[in-house]
């Protein structure tokens, strides 16, 4: 009998989840990069003279970190959620359900693979868009912290959505009615300070706003709110979402009837 290594299980699931999106990389990595570049070209061109953001930061430069973060978040979410829903619907999740893998292993692997995809797409978007207007790297540590935490939180949120959804249209509803509005209304395309007072306040209730604001801080050294506040909100949200995801996995919600 080959000796058994408990960490091998989680590594294998992580590897399999990464391989799954990598095998269709054109759709899962290249396509989102192209979409983000389109946003940059069109919005950057149309709005560059009309939108006032930070002092000394041109609109196109301002837009780049927002687009990078939006791509990270949307792709991290898409990875865990679509993988789980597909496996549930096609029935091949049974291969995982009969293994000794713990809820921690499931969580680590699904969220880990989501982070790999989100960060790969984000890096791709950055590499292409930075060529148009280099945004600068004022405080790079914030960039890493918010990219990693944001990808992790959306990976965990995708896990919850994937466990909850029984059909593809439920998944699409989650993505289009929750994730999309929250990302678009988080200040990807504008500084929330330019909004009317009411909408400015509403934006501060959206955890996605803090992810993007904190992330942008890393590039320009300026942000709408303190990066420490953003870290507290994003870190807290990540903990809450992760706890829910782990609890659902542990209780076998919609997995073990």
């Amino acid at each position: 009998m080959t000796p058994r290594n408990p960490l091998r299980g989680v590594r294998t699931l992580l590897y399999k989840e990464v391989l799954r999106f990598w095998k269709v990389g054109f759709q899962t990595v290249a396509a989102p990069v192209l979409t983000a570049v389109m946003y940059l070209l069109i919005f950057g061109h149309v709005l560059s003279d009309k939108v006032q953001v930070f002092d000394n930061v041109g609109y196109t430069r301002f837009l780049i970190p927002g687009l990078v973060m939006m791509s990270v978040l949307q792709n991290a979410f898409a990875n865990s959620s679509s993988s789980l829903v597909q496996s549930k619907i096609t029935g091949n999740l049974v291969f995982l359900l009969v293994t000794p893998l713990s809820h921690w292993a499931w969580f680590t692997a699904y969220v880990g693979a989501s982070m790999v995809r989100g960060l790969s797409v984000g890096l791709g978007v950055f590499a292409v868009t930075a060529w148009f207007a280099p945004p600068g790297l004022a405080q790079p540590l914030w960039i890493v912290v918010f990219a990693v935490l944001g990808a992790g939180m959306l990976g965990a949120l995708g896990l919850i959505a994937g466990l909850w959804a029984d059909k593809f249209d439920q998944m699409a509803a989650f993505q289009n009615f929750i994730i999309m509005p929250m990302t678009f209304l988080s200040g990807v395309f504008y500084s929330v300070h330019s909004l009317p007072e009411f909408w400015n306040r509403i934006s501060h209730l959206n955890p996605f706003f803090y992810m993007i604001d904190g992330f942008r801080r890393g590039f320009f050294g300026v942000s709408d709110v303190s990066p420490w506040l953003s870290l507290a909100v994003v870190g807290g949200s990540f903990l809450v979402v992760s706890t829910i995801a782990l609890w659902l996995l542990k209780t076998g919600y919609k997995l073990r009837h």
Partner: protein
Amino acid sequence: MPAVSFQNVSKTYSGPRGSLRALDAVSFDIQQGEFFGLLGPNGAGKTTLISILAGLARSSSGQVRVMGHDVVADYAAARMALGIVPQELVFDPFFSVRETLRIQSGYFGLHHNDAWIGELLDHLGLADKAGANMRQLSGGMKRRVLVAQALVHRPPVIVLDEPTAGVDVELRQTLWQFIARLNREGHTVLLTTHYLEEAEALCSRIAMLKQGRVVALDRTANLLAGTASTMLRFKTDQPLPAALAAQARVTGRIVQLKAHDAAEVETLLAALRAGGVRIEDLEIGRADLEDVFLEIMQGAPAIETIA
């Protein structure tokens, strides 16, 4: 220590139209090295029982152990000891056969498992398909991969849930030879099947489920001996006399009638002659498992849906 132990296992599904008791206090043990058959009509609870064993479902009450490990409290050890071949023909379309088996090994914590994977591929006639994507395989080939996946971690207990449903004769033979070999080498096998001749040929002991209850549990030989009846089998194109038609089992042209002794055989034949029924290919043989099964299923008490 039994290989598998079910103790008072009940399962109630709650729905908008009341609840359904799928399993009702099921208790039996399967000893190590046994080739055990679990039989019952559709909806009897076989798959529910196996799902609870595999951790795919949770029992409402009772306890299930695999090689002494509780399937809930000590699930990791229980699942290490168990290999399940699911009933549905499922596969992951992203991977090749070899990738599928390597990944499945990894889930069980096994790395360098290629020697055993190679052996599985050889024994199941999959060697030339190792590099093929799962989507390219025929149904029978996919079924073989399911068997290989269940065995990657060399589990001492193997569960096959209707493995030969819709499978061609060649695969059935390959599969049974391989499973029988594993059984001879000490693996415990739990089989559910609709093909009663398979159960009769392979299983040393059988449990029959009906509406969530165990209605028979014995050695296959004892079950067959228990009915101690003789079967009269023949073919005919004509209708049977009413008195005989009531007790006959008719499958197309084949008619089977039960007789307790030689005198009753004579009486039946006389009745057929008197009724003007022309019979062909007459055989007189012992009852088989199908007869036992039908007799038990017709006689066993039913359990009503509880509100």
